[in-house]
C-alpha cells in the first residue's frame, strides 16, 4: 500500500528464517494427525502453515523487486536493525526477568529503570535516580495497592 521503501539489511534473511520456521511448523502440523481425515485436529494447523509458507514465498518474490539496501553485510544489519542501544535494552529486560523472583520486584524494577534511563538519556545519574524512584513508587502504589496485583517479593527482605 505504501511507497516502495529500500530493503533493510537482513530483510531477506529474516524472510528466509520465517520460511524455514514455517516449513518446520508445517511438518509438525502434519505429524499431529497426518492425512487421516479432512476434519482431523491436524488439518487446520496444516492449512495455516501452508498459508504461511505460501505468503512467504510471495513476499520473497516481491522483495526481489525492492531496491537493494544501501549497505549490506553484518555491519549494516548491526547499525540499522540491531543498534547497540537495542541490544543493551534487551539484555536489561532479560536481567529484569531473571532478577524478579530472587531479588523481588522493587529491587529488580528499580535497578532496571535506573540503568535504562541512565543509558537512554546518556548520563545524569541523579536525575535518573530521582525519576526511577518516583516512577517505581507510582507503579507500586497503583498496581500493588489499587489493582492489588501480586508482585514478586524477595524472601530475604
Amino acid at each position, binding site marked *: *500500500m*505504501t511507497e516502495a*521503501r529500500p530493503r*533493510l539489511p537482513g*530483510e531477506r534473511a*529474516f*524472510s528466509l528464517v*520465517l520460511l524455514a520456521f514455517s516449513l518446520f*511448523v508445517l511438518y*509438525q*502440523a502434519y505429524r*499431529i*494427525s497426518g492425512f487421516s*481425515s*479432512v*476434519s482431523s*485436529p*491436524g*488439518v*487446520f*494447523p496444516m492449512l*495455516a*502453515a501452508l*498459508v*504461511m509458507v505460501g*505468503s*512467504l514465498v*510471495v*513476499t520473497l518474490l*516481491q522483495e526481489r523487486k525492492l531496491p537493494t539496501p544501501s549497505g549490506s553485510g553484518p555491519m549494516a544489519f548491526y547499525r540499522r*536493525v540491531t*543498534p547497540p*542501544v*537495542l541490544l543493551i*535494552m*534487551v539484555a536489561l*529486560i*532479560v536481567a*529484569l*526477568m531473571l532478577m*524478579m*523472583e530472587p531479588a523481588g*520486584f522493587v529491587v529488580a*524494577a528499580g535497578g*532496571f*529503570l535506573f540503568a*535504562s*534511563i541512565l543509558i*537512554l*538519556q546518556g548520563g545524569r545519574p541523579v536525575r535518573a535516580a530521582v*525519576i526511577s524512584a518516583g*516512577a517505581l513508587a507510582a*507503579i507500586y502504589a497503583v*498496581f500493588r495497592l489499587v*489493582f*492489588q*496485583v*501480586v*508482585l*514478586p517479593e524477595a524472601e530475604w527482605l
Partner: protein
Amino acid sequence: MEGSTLSYFLMSWLDPSLLALTAAGTLAGVYIGAIPGLSVTMAVSILISFTFAWDVNDALALMGGVFCGGVYGGSRTAILLNIPGAPSAIATAIDGFPLAQRGEAGRAIGVSTVMSVIGGITGVIALALAAPAISEFALMFAPRDYLLLAIIGILLVGALSGESLAKGVFAGALGVLIGMVGLDPMTAEGRFTFGQVSLLGGIPYVAAMIGFFGVAEALVQLHHLHATPVRQKVDRIVPGWDVVKKYIPLSIRSSVIGVVVGALPGTGGDIAALMAYDHAKRSVKKPSRPFGQGAYEGLVAPETANNAAIGGAYIPMLTLGLPGDAVTAVIIGALFIHGLKPGPMLMIETPHLFWFTVGNLTLANIFTLIFGLTGIRVFAKMVECPRSILIPLIIVLSVVGTYAIQNSVIDIYWMLAFGVLGYFMKMYGYQVGPVILGVILGPLMDVSYRRAMLSVRDDPVMFAWEMVANPLTLVLTLSVILLLASQTPAWATARTRLGRWRETARR
C-alpha cells in the same frame, strides 16, 4: 423489559464507582492516545492482566473509557506536534499540523474534539440499533459462515494496513498457529506441545498481546529516541456553534464510513480515518483551504470516522464474537478471562452486558468532550515526556502486566520472545495487528471449519458446494474471492485498462 434496558444503560452513569472508572479511563486514554509510543491496544492489553480479578463491569468500564479517550487523544499530538499519537490519527496530522502552524491550534483541537464526540456518539447509536438485529440474524449463521467471516477479517486487515497482502496474511496465519498450540478443543489431543506439559494449556495470549503491542513497540521507539517535538501556542479552544454546524453534513458522512469500516471484522479506526479523509478530499469541492494546508474538512473527516469506528468495532464483537479491530480483539480476550463467550448468545444470555456497554460508551464520549476541552496546558507538558523515560516505563508495565496474569516468570519469557519477534516483524514491514486477530480468530476458525466439514460427512465436494449453495454463504465466499483477486497484478491491469476505456469512451 424496556425499563430494565434503561437501567442497564444507565448503570455506569448512576453507580459512582463505575462513573469514576469510566472518567479515569477516558482521562488516561486521552493521554495514552496522545503520547507517541503509547497505544490504546498496548494499554488495553496491559489492563487485562490488572483487571481480571475485578467485576466484569468495572473492567469493561475502564477499558471502554481508555478506548474512547485514546482514539481521540491521538489527534492532539497530530495537531500540536505533527506526530500522530496513535495510528488512527495519521490522517489527522495531514491538515491538523498546518493549522497549528497558522496559529489555529486551539481552534483545531476544539473542532476535532467536538467532531470526535459526534462521531463517537453516532458509532454508539449504530451499535445500539444494529447489534440486536445482527445478533438475531447471526443465529442463522452456520459454522462455514463464521469461517468465511474470519477469513475476510484477516484478509481485510492484511490488505489495508500493511505493506503487502502477503505479509499481512503471513502475520494472520502465524497468529492462527499461535492460537492452535495446546489441547485441541474438540478432541483434547495435544497440538504443537512437543511433550511439554506447560504447553498443553496453550501459549498465554495476553503475554503475546503485551509482547507484540508493548515490548515490540517500545523497542521500535528506540530508533526515535531523539525526535524533538515542535511546540505550538494554544489559544481559545471551544469552537462556536456556527463552525460546528458547517461541518455537520461531512461529519455524518464520515461517521457512516467509520461505522461500516469499524464493523467489518478486523479493520478499525486507522483505516476508517484514512478512508474518510480520502472521501472528504473527493467530495468537498470547496474546502476552507486546500487539503494538506490546513483544511478543517481534512480534520473533521478522519476524526469523526475514527471515533465512529469504535461503536462499529463493538458490533461484530458483541454479536458474532469476531473482533472488529485489534482493540476489540484484546477486549474479547478480556471477556474470555471473565468467563464470558462473545457471540450471538451473548445478547440473549447477558443482555445487561450489551446495554451496559452502550451506556458506558456514551458516557465515555461525554467525558471525552469534557476532558478534550479542558486541561490543555497540563497536557502539553505531559506529552513532551522524553522517550528515554517512557520506554523503560512501558517495559516495566509490560513485565508487571504479564507477570500478573498467573504469577509466572515463564509468561515473561513468552512476552519477551514475542516482543523481539514483533520488533523484527515491524522493522521489516510485517504488521503485528493481524497476529492478534489470528490468535483470537484461529481457534474459532478451526472449530468452525471442522464442524462445517463434519456436517457434510467429511466430503470435500459437498463442502465446496455448501460454500456457494446458501445465499449468505455465497456472498461471503464471493467477498473472499474478490478480496484475493483485488490484490493480484491482473486486477490492477484490468483497472487501468477499464480506466483508459472510460477515458476514450468519454471523448
